[in-house]
């Protein structure tokens, strides 16, 4: 059997793939966080909760309505996007004139409410969710066994991330969005409905989080706590990458997932903490983040 650094190659590649899967979730979530922060000046702590709700909707769709994975892959992001509209219109819009910190605190409160509500109905233990039939099994690539579902998660995440990047950087809608980030009053003076753009931005970010949640449901257990564990790592990812650049967020997310996966192989004890250690090092060497510019 082929070995690399004393680790069997298939095991190494398996962990690498698992790292890429986690990295895809980091990328999807930090992308949403960055876009929302750019437009609303709010760090959306509730992003983890929206991801959790996405995963739960997938599970509930199957459990109560008999709607399978493919339906929920479409419906869950839509539903959570609508929830995002509600959150933004009812709660967040009152905070734009205040210090950023209140936005963080309010979305933290939303997180607690969502987590508490799901806990009171479903407890803290995870609910299993089956891999959809079409993506069952694995493909033998010769040098490794590639589980189809994990490959699918990475592929979808990459396509969606690049799609969002293209939407923001290459279309006129994206140009308006970027202009709105720079100077909302001027953009409004040109006749763009900025408040509606802000609402849609939040809804879009929320839908991305829910999409990540549905993708995660068959890989991880669907549990009320799955979001808050993830969001703190994603915060570290955002600090490392900086929120200035879309591609930067995607690359940082994927890269850190891979590093985490490799740490699981070589030094499993540190796999939980490695992202935070990297954050500390980046803060020492490049305080503004790898792709960041100081605001």
């Amino acid at each position, binding site marked *: 059997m082929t070995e690399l650094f004393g680790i069997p190659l298939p095991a190494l590649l398996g962990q690498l793939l698992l790292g890429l899967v986690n990295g895809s979730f980091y990328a999807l979530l930090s992308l949403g966080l960055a876009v929302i*922060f750019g437009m609303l000046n709010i760090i959306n702590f509730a992003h983890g909760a929206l991801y959790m709700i996405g995963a739960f909707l997938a599970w509930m769709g199957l459990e109560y309505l008999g709607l399978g994975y493919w339906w929920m892959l479409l419906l869950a992001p839509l539903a959570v996007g609508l929830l995002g509209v509600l959150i933004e219109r009812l*709660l967040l819009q009152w905070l734009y004139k205040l210090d950023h910190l209140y936005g963080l*605190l309010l979305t*933290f409160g939303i997180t607690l*409410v969502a987590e508490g*509500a799901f*806990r009171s109905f479903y407890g803290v233990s995870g609910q299993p969710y089956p891999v959809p039939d079409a993506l069952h099994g694995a493909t033998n690539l010769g040098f490794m066994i590639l589980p189809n579902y994990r490959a699918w998660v990475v592929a979808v995440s990459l396509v969606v991330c690049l799609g969002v990047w293209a939407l923001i950087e290459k279309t006129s809608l994206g140009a308006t969005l970027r202009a709105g980030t720079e100077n909302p009053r001027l953009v409004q003076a040109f006749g763009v409905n900025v408040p509606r753009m802000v609402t849609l931005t939040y809804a879009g970010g929320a839908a991305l989080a829910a999409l990540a949640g549905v993708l995660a449901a068959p890989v991880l257990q669907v549990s009320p706590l799955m979001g808050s564990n993830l969001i703190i790592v994603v915060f570290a990812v955002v600090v490392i990458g900086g929120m200035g650049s879309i591609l930067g967020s995607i690359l940082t997310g994927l890269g850190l997932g891979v590093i985490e996966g490799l740490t699981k192989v070589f030094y499993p004890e540190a796999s*939980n903490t490695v992202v935070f250690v990297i954050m500390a090092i980046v*803060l020492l060497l490049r305080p503004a983040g790898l792709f960041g510019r100081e605001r």
Partner: protein
Amino acid sequence: MRAAASAAMAHPELRQSPLLGYAALFLGIAMLPAFGAYPIFVMKVLCYALFACAFNLLIGFTGLLSFGHAAFLGTAAYCAGHALKVWGWPTPLGLAFGAAAAAAAGLVFGWLAIRRSGIYFAMVTLALSQMLYFVFLQSPFTGGEDGLQSVPRGDFLGLPLANDLTLYYVVLAIFIAAFWLIYRTVHSPFGQVLTSIRENEARATSLGYDVDRFKLVAFVLSAGLAGLAGATKTLVLGFATLTDALWTTSGLVILMTLVGGMGTMVGPIVGALVIIALENKIGDVGRTLAEWTDIAWFNSLGESVTLVTGLIFIACVLAFRRGVVGELSYRWRRRAERRAPGR
């Protein structure tokens, strides 16, 4: 009344009268057990009140939102518990060790976190505290998921602490000493510089203050005091668990300070009382609601404390940002201003 208000404005030293109010407050707390208050409950409130006061030193008086203060509570809880239980250290030394360990953690966290400001500062502190949480989860000395159990109380300078009432007055004395330290800090020239950083960091820098150094000192002081709270809590309850270091605890201390009033001296104490009482009583409230409304779900309200604290969080941020004490003192000041239209 009006004369007193204008006199206080003309002679700043007369504004020291809040000290009398604090003395009355602490005298009242000292007499609580005589009125049948459960000492352990009041001691728990005092520990969290100290925790919130320490946190308030940062958010209220320096303008830094630390989202990782549970790390300091947890570090001190474990270190003090370990020193008392495994090493058999005398109680005061164990408490001091806990606080010192938390201050050391605060030095490292602060040194890293002050490189970023505002929202990033909050995210960095949250991430660092989560890292420490995983370290505690995996280290053998913390007892992992079980926590550190049956920590002995020992005695404090010759007073045996096995008696709840003796412990009560020791804890109260620790609290008053720490509160006095915070009061002195806030009202010292150093504290004035901290306030100026909160109000306008760029201007403080341009006046020649080494802003980063002031922030770091404030951070370490706050971490050490939060540690003192954690160590004392371990002494009172006899155990330290992972919850002490969890991010939800960081959120809880923010909520306490917000409910009581950020940037007020007494606010965090009020906030701690409200939140701890709520955590203790929420199950009863749920059962009463279930009886009234016939909705069986309310019976489980005791297990979903986070749901209720989350709702309070949202309500406070949206409509009650001054907090209980902040709102009262704001109204009192406005009334005083209306009665002295010459100003």
